[in-house]
Each structure stands twice: as structure tokens, then as C-alpha cells.
């Protein structure tokens, strides 16, 4: 572990300024080939979040620290990281929740590291391309009742921070990217499948390449979602039930055959 660098090395407080509390930030520095955590002392003010501290380091200690961010308001989903081992948005994680602790900031473990806190999340966009897009029964615009779009609107709150993908143990611990699309794309499929105007069928995809069966519904995706989307209860489990309708329920299958046949 590298020796802590303090603010004295960079920018000393102005004369007469009230002394701020210092905290130690241990930030991963490195790339896909090698890296280690380095400790920095950061002065902490009220309401400061982890992203503020990283920005302070960039401005005052080391401008080469790489970090992806855009809005600093939990809207863009760019600043996802592992903070003290737990996936979270750096812009939404307050430093005063860690008083007396070293704050370890690492890139998302599930995705390949590009540099420092920046990971390559392009796998997600490749997965997105495998999902049949919205296929409406008639050209837009549609007239729909609110109750018919409520479910989809919950899923559309997703900001694609990929924290759910990061915490999903199928992807994170079992390298299941070749078998399971992950929670983010389960809500994408649920949104499309539950849309009253959509005509496409993605149940076979779920049971096959989508890998829905790999999810063992331990709800971590739901716990970390910064948008509080009920990923497991409102998307994954209903999709499991729809898959069971087709593959595990001979009674339903019989009724379906009678209707179509």
C-alpha cells in the first residue's frame, strides 16, 4: 500500500480557515494489467460525497486519477464504483457515513478495468442488442391507460448505472456473462413483455440465452438500485412465472393449445 499523501503536499488550507475533518480515501490506481490502492488524506465538509473527494484529489493532489462522471446528481449513472466493498454511486454515497473508517474506492468488480475507477461496460450494450426491440401492434402514437403503463414506467426509471449488474453474483462471482443477461436486462425485457402494445415474444429468449434460470433471486440487485426499482419482485419473478407458464405448467400449456388449436 502506498504512503498516504496529504493535502499539505497539494493545497494547504487558507490562513484562518476553520479546520476541516480529514478522512482517508484509499483509491484504486492502475489499469487492466496491474494496480493497487493508494491512500490519500481528504478534508471533508458537510454533505460531501465520495465523488467530491475524488474531484478534490483530481484538483489538488493528482490530476491523473481517472473517474467517469457526468451529473453528480444520481441521474446519469456514470460514477458507479465499489465503495468499501459495496456497489454504489460515488455521487450518492456520503463520506460522513464512514467517519472513523478508511473509505476504499475501487472500480466495479464485474467489469474489466480501463483505468483507475473507470471500467469497460460495453458488454451491456452488446447484450441490449440481443433483445428484440419494442414491436408495436400498430404505429405510434397509442392511447393507453395509466394502469397499463405503470409497470413499465417503474422499469424506465433505470439510469443504467449497472450497479445491479455489478452486484449480481452470477456475473460478479461466477463470470456468467456468457450465460445470463443480468438484472438490468431482465427489467428491460419485463418492460417490453408487459407493454400492452408490444407483440414480440421474448420468453424463449429468457429461458435460453437470457439465462433467467441462473438468477436465484437473492435480491441484491434490488438492494443496490439507486432508483429503488423492485427489480426482483416486479421484473425477475414475474418473468420467471411467465417462463414457468410455458415450460413448467402442463395445464396452462393444454389451455394454450386449445385456444390456438
Amino acid at each position, binding site marked *: 500500500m502506498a504512503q498516504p499523501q496529504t493535502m499539505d503536499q497539494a493545497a494547504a488550507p487558507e490562513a484562518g480557515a476553520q*479546520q476541516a*475533518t480529514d478522512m482517508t480515501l484509499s483509491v484504486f490506481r492502475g489499469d487492466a494489467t496491474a494496480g493497487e490502492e493508494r491512500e490519500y488524506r481528504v478534508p471533508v*465538509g458537510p454533505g460531501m460525497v465520495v465523488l467530491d473527494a475524488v474531484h478534490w484529489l483530481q484538483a489538488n493532489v493528482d490530476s491523473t486519477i481517472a473517474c467517469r462522471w457526468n451529473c453528480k446528481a444520481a441521474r446519469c449513472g456514470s460514477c458507479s464504483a465499489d465503495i468499501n466493498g459495496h*456497489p454504489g454511486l460515488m455521487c450518492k454515497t456520503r463520506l460522513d457515513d464512514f467517519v472513523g473508517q478508511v473509505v476504499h474506492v475501487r472500480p466495479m468488480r464485474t467489469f474489466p478495468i480501463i483505468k483507475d475507477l473507470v471500467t469497460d461496460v460495453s458488454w451491456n450494450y452488446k447484450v441490449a442488442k440481443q433483445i428484440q426491440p419494442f414491436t408495436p401492434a400498430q404505429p405510434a402514437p397509442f392511447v393507453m391507460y395509466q394502469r397499463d403503463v405503470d409497470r413499465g414506467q417503474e422499469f424506465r426509471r433505470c439510469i443504467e448505472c449497472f450497479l445491479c449488474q455489478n452486484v449480481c453474483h452470477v456475473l460478479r*462471482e461466477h463470470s456468467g456473462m456468457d450465460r445470463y443477461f443480468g438484472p438490468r436486462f431482465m427489467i428491460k425485457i419485463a418492460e417490453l413483455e408487459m407493454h400492452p402494445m408490444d407483440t414480440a415474444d421474448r420468453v424463449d429468449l429468457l429461458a435460453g440465452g437470457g439465462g433467467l434460470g441462473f438468477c436465484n*433471486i437473492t435480491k441484491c440487485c434490488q438492494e443496490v438500485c439507486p432508483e429503488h426499482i423492485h427489480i426482483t419482485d416486479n421484473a425477475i419473478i414475474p418473468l420467471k412465472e411467465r417462463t414457468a407458464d410455458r415450460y413448467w405448467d402442463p395445464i396452462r400449456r393444454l389451455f394454450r393449445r386449445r385456444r390456438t388449436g
Partner: protein
Amino acid sequence: MATPATVPAPQRAPKGWKLPWWVEPTATVVALGSFGLYSIWEVFFHTTGRFGNYLSPFFSPDVTAWGIHVIPAVWVVWVPLLFRASCYYYRKEYYRGFFADPAACARPERSRVYRGETRFPLSLNNLHRFMLYLAIVVILFLWDDTVRAFIFPNGFGVGLGSLIMLGNVILLSYYTFSCHAFRHLVGGGLDCFTCRARAVTRYGLWSRVSAWNSHHGQWAWISMFGVWATDVYIRLLISGVLHDPRLI
């Protein structure tokens, strides 16, 4: 950019006391393990769960009335056991507690081949809906037992046991009818809630079940402890340790 050097130290209290990650899985193992051991003792070492007009939920329906006297509870408990074992909520708890798969969110796991619920026997969890159908039948028997618990040899009455059985069956009903499979059955499988007259009715049902479903985990635990408490009470009555107070 924040201006940290000119502001006072943080005043906000930390957001609550966070339990260590191992507390939840350990509590699950202790609670479910204890209940499992108690259930084995109750089922295999007792031939009756009846005390007067009270019947233990472990022995309902009362198969001895149908001429089955060999370990009567075994013929009953497999339904609630499999219903709970395939329950979406309990799956989360036992995958975390017993399989450490994962033990807690973002915790490292042992390296091994992971198949999730794609292979036997865990793939059988997909049959949860059939366990639900059977559990609903058991609930009907439990409601029948509860009504009988208010009918004493001298007519209507209320004993402490009657109230305990009533509380138990209410908790079990909430647990059963807040089930994710039931939510899907009543309306969750529809894409359009307004396209047909029947779909509008189903939307109402789905909304109600969804409200119950948001507390399914709580119902799961409370109802399990309710069954436990009811059985313990009746067992203590049978063994003569307790006397059932009549309230009315």
C-alpha cells in the same frame, strides 16, 4: 467542486447502525434450522395434535379421521414444507443462509460451477405454483379447524387456544395469498389491464395482492413463528403443562 478547507467538520449522524454482513444469514440458519428440528420432533414423535376442539396446524387436515394412523403429520406437512421451500422469499433466505450463494450482497463466493436454478433439483422451484394450489387447500382445512376451535361441547365459546388458532390462520392466509405465484395468477400474467372487462377485475385483484406481496417476507417469518407458537401451545395443553383459559 466542494470547498472542504473552509467548512466545519461533518455534523450529520451516520445513517443508522449497520449490522455486519454475517448477521442475516446466521439468523436465517438459526431460525429455519431450529424450526426444522422442532418440526422433525413434532412430526415423527407424536401421533396426535388434537386437544379437545383444538387441532395443531402440523396435523391439519386430521388424517386420522380418514383412517390413517401411521405418523399422521407426515401426510400433511409435506405441502406447507414444499410450499415454503419453493417460495421466492425463502429461496432468497436459504440461498444466502445455507448455501452462501451469496451469503450477502457483494461477498466473495467459493469457486465452483454455478448452475443456479437451471438444473435438478433446484429447477423444481419452478413448480411453486402447484405447491400454492395445494397450500390453498390446506388453508381451507385450517379455517375449518379454526371455526371448530370456537365450538366447545357446550356450544360457542372462546378460549385462548381459539384466539391463537385464529391469529395463526390469518397470518398463514396473508402469507399464502401474498405469494408471487398467486400475484401472477390473478393478473400479473396480463399485458393489458384494460383490454377486456375481466382484465379490469383482475387488475383490482392484482393490485390488492401486490400490496400484500410487498410484505411477503414479513408474512413468511411471522406466519412461521405463528405455526410454531400454535403448535407449542396445543402440545403443552396435550401434555398437561398448561390449562386453556376460557374467555367466553
